[in-house]
């Protein structure tokens, strides 16, 4: 029973290696391998194939996809909150007085819509998105593009983000360039979410670009930050699409709370002043401007 058997083909060897051939047939294969260089080489190649496949690094999720999913997720959260809120209480008319009725199980650190509304007046967010998108892009809610998104709540937010991701170079932000990692990771975005700088600047429409530049240039040591709420995160990600987030800062705009959001694309920075009620599903932008980036361009 030495070399009697014909050479093994790849399928048989692969099945043997996977433990699918045992018993007498398996014993014959083992015996054949013991005396056949050709089949032994093939067997080694099969083993090598597995190490080769295992050695290919798993691709990290591109930032553009991650941001798009965050928008969709924020929309899901917002929808669920809305449903729960409606269930809990519906009178919320003038919006000025709100009693902190506990409508969630205690101990959750989850964001409550109520808390946010109280906080909001203190924290206006300024959003600056880097060039590329004109003002028309701000009204994302009116986009007619649709996608096969499974989330009805995501309509308005997610499909647009998806469409952007597709039209704007599919996986990479156009300005991501060849380097990745620390350099290109948007400053304000961490794996856990978005950081909001708690600022006290009172911005105004006139010369908004210069005021935004001043906020961008403020040294990090002079700032205090907090994590963005789910609503803020949805708002910011919805505004910036796949562009690189530069700054999210709570400010005053014309004396009222707002959030400054700045994002960058190439040599341009785009800035939005978002109203406190801005969310993934409700884009309320008070003002917007575009400026040449002081960092990467002329």
């Amino acid at each position, binding site marked *: 029973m030495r070399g009697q058997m014909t050479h093994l083909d790849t*399928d048989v060897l*692969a099945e043997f290696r*996977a433990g699918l051939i045992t018993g007498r047939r398996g014993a014959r294969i083992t015996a054949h391998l013991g005396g056949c260089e050709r089949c032994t080489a*093939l067997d080694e*190649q099969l083993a090598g*194939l597995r190490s080769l496949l295992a050695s290919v690094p798993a691709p990290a*999720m591109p930032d553009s996809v991650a941001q798009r999913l965050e928008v969709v997720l924020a929309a899901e959260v917002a929808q669920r909150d809305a449903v729960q809120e409606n269930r809990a209480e519906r009178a919320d008319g003038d919006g000025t007085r709100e009693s902190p009725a506990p409508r969630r199980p205690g101990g959750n650190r989850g964001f409550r819509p109520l808390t946010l509304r109280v906080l909001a007046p203190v924290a206006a967010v300024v959003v600056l998105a880097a060039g590329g998108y004109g003002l028309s892009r701000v009204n994302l809610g009116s986009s007619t593009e649709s996608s096969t*998104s*499974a989330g009805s709540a995501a309509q308005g937010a997610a499909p647009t983000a998806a469409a952007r991701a597709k039209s704007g170079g*599919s996986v990479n932000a156009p300005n991501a360039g060849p380097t990745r990692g620390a350099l290109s990771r948007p400053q304000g975005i961490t794996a856990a979410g978005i950081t909001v700088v708690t600022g006290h600047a009172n911005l105004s429409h006139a010369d908004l670009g210069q005021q935004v530049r001043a906020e961008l240039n403020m040294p990090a040591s002079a700032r205090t930050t907090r994590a963005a709420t789910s609503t803020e995160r949805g708002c910011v990600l919805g505004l910036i699409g796949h562009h690189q987030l530069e700054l999210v800062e709570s400010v005053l705009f014309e004396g009222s709370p707002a959030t400054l959001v700045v994002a960058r694309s190439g040599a341009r920075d785009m800035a939005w002043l978002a109203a406190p009620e801005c969310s993934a599903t409700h884009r309320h932008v008070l003002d917007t401007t575009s400026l040449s980036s002081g960092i990467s361009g002329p």
Partner: protein
Amino acid sequence: MPDEAAPADHELLRRHVAGDADAFGELFRRHRDRLWAVALRTLCDPDEAADALQDAMVSAFRRAADFRGESAVTTWLHRIVVNASLDRLRRRAARPALSTGDEQAFEALVAQDGDPARTSDTRLDVDAALRLLPPQQRAVLVLVDMLGFSVADTAAILDTSPGTVKSRCARARARLLPHLAHLQGNRSPGQSVSPAQGGDTA
């Protein structure tokens, strides 16, 4: 994986079901790179993968209450992603083939990491070879050989038997070998390989 400070997967899922607005996001972010890899390699197309992952995430978000804990949370998440990916492949098969996608998809796959050329070459070849496989074989191979899932876990993810997983793996490897043997450094490619693919059907 999770250190002491980080809540376990099932705990995050429980909090999500209980109404915590941030728990699901934390859970999803924790596993997103692997979930992305599964979708991307099963679909071989970044745009399709992103769509599939979005479908899967929304589905998991809404159906979390259905999770009964008979498997690990990661198994459950992977199953949803794999199913969303295979669904897309089925739908795509029903459509006329797009001719434009492949090269762009390749470039995107390579470009996304800015990898040095060598890694990219290997990855390109592997990605190209994966396309030769029927979807079910591809999904199995990705889970077992590329992402390191055990046969048992893979069977749970795909809701099939370990024997089926093994045989799909074997067929997939046999089919890939002729196309990838040249990447295995010192061995000479053609000489000993007889690409017998006679019985290689899905």
